């Protein structure tokens, strides 16, 4: 309909003009809808299919958003009928049989919870489950951490890593004088959006070196030294996503010195504690180094991977402050961020975590299951590396075993990735990232064949 098209083009300015026209008692030209023509207030308005202006939809200007690139990979995978397809997109752990895994210790905790007659579903406080918060802080900072002993840590339960980053970002946008955050290049696709919507301005620092497929340490130090005093810096605590490239402890120390001398505020994203190396303490080293020097920092913690609680959305935001006094005030302000976002966090996942962490025996069982997951991934790395070497695939593939965590930045380019998807039904993100957690001994040979073919035929 011509009118509808015209109205669709007019959109918001059209609506304003239309309103003005109505006030002036003028018949606005494309408007022939009953609503517009009615100048007489007492006339009964004829109901139309919608009550949006001009008889069209109020949502005319709402465009279709593109599918999320990472989650879109799984969508495409699901639509593929091939029996040899492999999903190396989303970062969720899979067993050797290619199945999702619920940890045994998690099932046990759930049994306890569901069968507990005294359990209620009353609202949690805005800051979440108190036990969970204390235990989470101890997990990441160490039980003997002076920051904890001195009550200098404000911890709030949030919706996994994403929620913790968002709440932390909003807090900083309101209360930190320097509203710029530096994120590594590359980083998890959702980081820039989280911080932008939180109200921070986002800049990058060099991180990945494609020529070495390792860390561009010099570039990192240079870029951070140029950051304005007081800027916030996002650091992946371990198992950098998407590259799998982590600084060595020595390099972390240098980063720390530089950041402290320039007054840069560290904001750690810790999504893989225990999952990267298999050892909870080792994977927390970077964070603990910064806390040990007495300085301030933020940490976003997630239990999605290390406890396999992906869909329960369990995480915590901790802000290490200079004094207990400041920590109390900071916590009060965090509540003001949370309350208008979702009021208080979901109880189920946090209860599971608290149950596991506070019971010595369950905690032990958890560390064993965690180690098993990490080791399976490490063995996939080794197998893939060996398979490529056996095939004599051109290039240095040692980065596969040097990188750590769930993901590997293969170094494959967009065209090679497209080729692998089309010819070999390998699903991965177009930046060349593969999720090692999605591999098994059975599928490694197929992936190696695909990489070999891609590298030989496409440059």
């Amino acid at each position: 309909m011509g009118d509808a098209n015209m109205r669709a083009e007019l959109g918001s300015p059209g609506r304003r003009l239309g309103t003005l026209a109505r006030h002036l008692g003028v018949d606005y030209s494309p408007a022939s809808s009953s609503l517009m023509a009615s100048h007489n207030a007492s006339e009964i308005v004829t109901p139309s299919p919608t009550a949006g202006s001009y008889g069209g939809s109020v949502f005319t200007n709402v465009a279709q958003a593109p599918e999320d690139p990472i989650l879109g990979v799984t969508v495409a995978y699901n639509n593929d009928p091939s029996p040899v397809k492999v999903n190396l997109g989303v970062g969720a752990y899979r067993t050797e049989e290619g199945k999702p895994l619920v940890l045994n210790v998690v099932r046990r905790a759930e049994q306890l919870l569901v069968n507990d007659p005294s359990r209620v579903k009353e609202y949690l406080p805005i800051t979440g489950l108190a036990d969970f918060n204390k235990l989470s802080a101890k997990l990441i900072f160490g039980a003997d951490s002076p920051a904890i002993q001195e009550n200098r840590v404000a911890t709030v339960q949030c919706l996994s890593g994403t929620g913790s980053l968002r709440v932390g970002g909003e807090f900083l946008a309101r209360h930190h004088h320097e509203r710029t955050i530096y994120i590594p290049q590359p980083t998890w696709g959702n980081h820039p959006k989280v911080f932008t919507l939180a109200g921070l301005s986002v800049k990058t620092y060099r991180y990945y070196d494609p020529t070495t497929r390792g860390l561009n340490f010099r570039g990192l130090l240079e870029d951070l030294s140029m950051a304005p005093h007081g800027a916030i810096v996002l650091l992946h605590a371990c198992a950098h996503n998407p590259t799998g490239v982590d600084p060595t402890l020595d390099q972390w120390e240098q980063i720390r010195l530089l950041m402290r001398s320039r007054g840069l505020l560290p904001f750690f994203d810790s999504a893989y504690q225990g999952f990267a190396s298999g050892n909870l303490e080792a994977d927390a080293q970077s964070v603990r180094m910064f806390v040990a020097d007495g300085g301030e920092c933020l940490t976003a913690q997630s239990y999605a991977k290390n406890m396999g609680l992906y869909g329960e959305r369990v995480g915590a935001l901790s802000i290490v402050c200079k004094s207990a006094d400041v920590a109390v005030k900071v916590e009060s302000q965090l509540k003001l961020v949370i309350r208008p976002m979702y009021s208080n966090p979901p109880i189920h996942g946090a209860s599971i975590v608290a149950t596991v962490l506070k019971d010595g025996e369950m905690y032990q069982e958890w560390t064993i299951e965690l180690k098993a997951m990490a080791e399976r991934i490490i063995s996939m790395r080794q197998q893939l590396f060996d398979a490529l070497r056996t095939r004599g695939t051109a290039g240095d593939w040692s980065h596969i075993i040097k990188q750590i965590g769930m993901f590997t930045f293969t170094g494959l380019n967009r065209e090679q990735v497209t080729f692998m998807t089309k010819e070999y039904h390998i699903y991965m993100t177009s930046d060349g990232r593969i999720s090692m957690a999605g591999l098994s001994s059975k599928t490694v040979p197929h992936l190696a064949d695909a990489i070999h073919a891609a590298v030989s035929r496409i440059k």
Partner: protein
Amino acid sequence: MVGSRRLLIKNGVVVVYVVLSVLRWRSHRILRCFDRMASALASVALSAPFARGVPLPENPMVQRIGAGKIHDNRLFKGKAFRRVSMAVSVNVSRFDGVTMAPPDPILGVSEAFRADTSDLKLNLGVGAYRTEELQPYVLNVVEKAEKLMLERGENKEYLPIEGLAAFNKVTAELLFGADNPVIQEGRVATIQGLSGTGSLRLAAAFIQRYFSDAKALISSPTWGNHKNIFNDARVPWSEYRYYDPRTVGLDFDGMVADIKAAPDGSFVLLHGCAHNPTGIDPTPDQWEKIADVIQEKNHIPFFDVAYQGFASGSLDADAYSVRLFVRRGFELLVAQSYSKNLGLYAERIGAINVVCSSPDAGTRVKSQLKRLARPMYSNPPVHGARIVANVVGDPNLFNEWKQEMELMAGRIKNVRQRLYENLSQKDESGKDWSFVLKQIGMFSYTGLNKVQSEHMMDKWHIYMTKDGRISLAGLSLSKCEYLADAIIDSFHNLFTAALLVSKLVRPSKVNV
């Protein structure tokens, strides 16, 4: 003589510099000014022959906190200055400027209640259902659903950004009716949200992005968090009259006039049923007239449905207002919560529904809501969604749920009845207390003002919010008489003083 005076001057300059440096770190806003002053003084001091221009290595343990740029390293080369800078910076926080946030008004009531040692104390601030024994209540159907889920041993994989598909389906059907044309035609965009709050917030963020000229109209009064949600989402809002203290009822004419006076295309926030905090709902006739004026102004209805089934005991009856607007052809938004009607408070389970004029619009709207959810929490929690899908999706459990809901709503109606009877019998003034029966849902506006509400706490140990709101969910039949005595006492004996005080209080109508 000359040397010692010089020494005095230099020391004086050092002291002033120290004071300014301390002040500098304490106040970000006047930083630049002090920065210049401090550097000016420092260079004066440094120019004295006592200064040792020996370059010292920077101590990495010293944190340079504060936004001021260290323009010139020469500032810190004097020995005296090095000691000063260490002493001042060690215990300074970059969050020193963070002030203590005011406590949440509603939670404060519960805290005060807990601290009260009296046997007579009664907590009528709580916004959660209590049994006659004043205990929290987990519904039987919820326990059954959770046991089923445990037996099945379902996985804990990420949900899609829009949430659990089965949950979204039954939720929209529950609200609109499964046979509703908008559902049959696929015109409803439903996204699982973090209970009512989270769903409202997603909708507000959507409004800000796609209707940046529009403002929200909220009732006066309304749930306290509504304003916070719109503020944080940066949606401007203003209030429409709602509560009439003279009748302890609806100011209908005021409501219609204010909605009419608002700019075209505003989002009108309406409580689907059981208005919070007043308990006062429009009649069906009044809803029709409200729809008329909304249509006339091309406003967009935005329903907050937190009590479907919990208000009257009937899911369909409580959806009346929403379904009326849908029938009349409006495009509209509905934020839904299962906190009260399924007792799933802490699981944070709800949804945002957008009824659109076409399936295509629905698809586009849904895609944009997802785009707002992803940078907020990525995808919603699975547990509560599965409980709802299991209960609402299973005919047996669904029927059992309806029965439990009738019991909960029934208990609240019973306490209202008892309270009304007690008030009418005990109050000799002839005041009309029937508003207690006319109001509906968990909350009631008693008509008590701030001073009177405080008297309830101080003398009678009855805890309620200062706007005169009581939670019937926290009242048992056995306590109705006591409550009636307290209300009568507070109302009559503080009437004069309270009237004077209440005239001094002017609530603001419009936000920044």
